[in-house]
């Protein structure tokens, strides 16, 4: 897939792959089935989730609700743009969100 042809869905997910334990809750209970296991694994040897079908992701954050390790969360691009608009750095955006 070249960079120009990637389909963008309505939302995306963020994964803190270092703390994922590969339980696959997010993958099995994703309403749009857009997640899959990554080929890579983290330092503990677990395969963390990956946005396998980005065009299907609606950013509903069900993965974030299910994740027992607080390692994944989803967001709609609409909210993401709102949260990051005007904020110079990531930290500012996070503070605003909190």
């Amino acid at each position, binding site marked *: 897939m070249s960079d120009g042809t990637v389909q963008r869905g309505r939302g995306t997910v963020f994964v803190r792959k*270092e*703390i994922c*334990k590969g339980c696959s809750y997010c993958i*099995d209970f994703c309403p749009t089935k857009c997640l899959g296991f990554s080929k890579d694994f983290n330092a503990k040897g677990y395969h963390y989730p990956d946005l396998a079908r980005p065009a299907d992701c609606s950013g509903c954050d069900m993965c974030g*609700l299910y*994740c027992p390790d*607080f390692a994944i969360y989803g*967001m709609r691009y609409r909210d993401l743009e709102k949260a990051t608009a005007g904020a110079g750095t990531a930290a500012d955006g996070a503070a605003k*969100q909190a």
Partner: protein
Amino acid sequence: MSQNLAIAADEREYPVENPVIPYLRQERIPHIWCPGCGIGTTVNCFARALTESKRDLDQVAIVSGIGCTGRVAGYLNLDSFHTTHGRAIPFATGLKLSNPKLKVVVYSGDGDLFAIGGNHFVHAARRNMDLTVICVNNFTYGMTGGQLAPTTPIGASQTTMPYGNFENPFNLPFLADACGAVYVARWTVFHVKQLTRAMHEAISKPGFTFVEVLAPCPTLYSRRNKLGDGVDQVKYYKERSVVKHGAATKEVALGFQGDIVVGKFVDRERETWLDGMNAHFEKVLGPRYRRYGE
């Protein structure tokens, strides 16, 4: 990886923080719960229920006993107390009565709340103490090695019941209902939205409120009974759950891998212990009595 910058990015570069992060003690994450354990999911739902309730987090205290679920108090960035085995409810009662403005939540497991601390649960519910009790029920003693718990269904194998359990387990919603809890609900970790809502309702309601959450224990209960991984148990919850709001709590007992009746069973009004005490002493002592906790 190049096609997805969001995932490839290091966590420090995330544009937005996970909404649960402010509720957690970051220095203690990753937590000790096994892969596939459902307790983390309940914590997730609890954090979101707190967000929905819009409470001042300085006025929320969380009390846990001993066990896997007892670790929750250590991970939540609230005023939290990790008490001795089974004594979460008496501690919470004392905390509530010494500072009646606090919202006190007891977050513990089935063994802690109903075996070692069973008596305390019964009496706190009888008095209608203003507490919220969240019980994560995984049908076993997880931390100590899979012994028989008072909630283990008949037929399930445990390390102290290697030929299968023959003891009748507790029906927790029935027990809470009979003792006088004003709010009783049961959900599983599959029902995250409903669970968040139930926790929100339980926190918002004055009086003794009780939420039972069924969670898988993949390491001990599931492995010993050959039930697969944590996610297989959650799939079983998905397939066999029947939502029955207002169901008679007598009929919601759990069998081994049988149907699970979930929903909000009890929602009623009763005078809390503090209100009862104030009303009683005003009646008996008249103007000599100053109301406590207002």
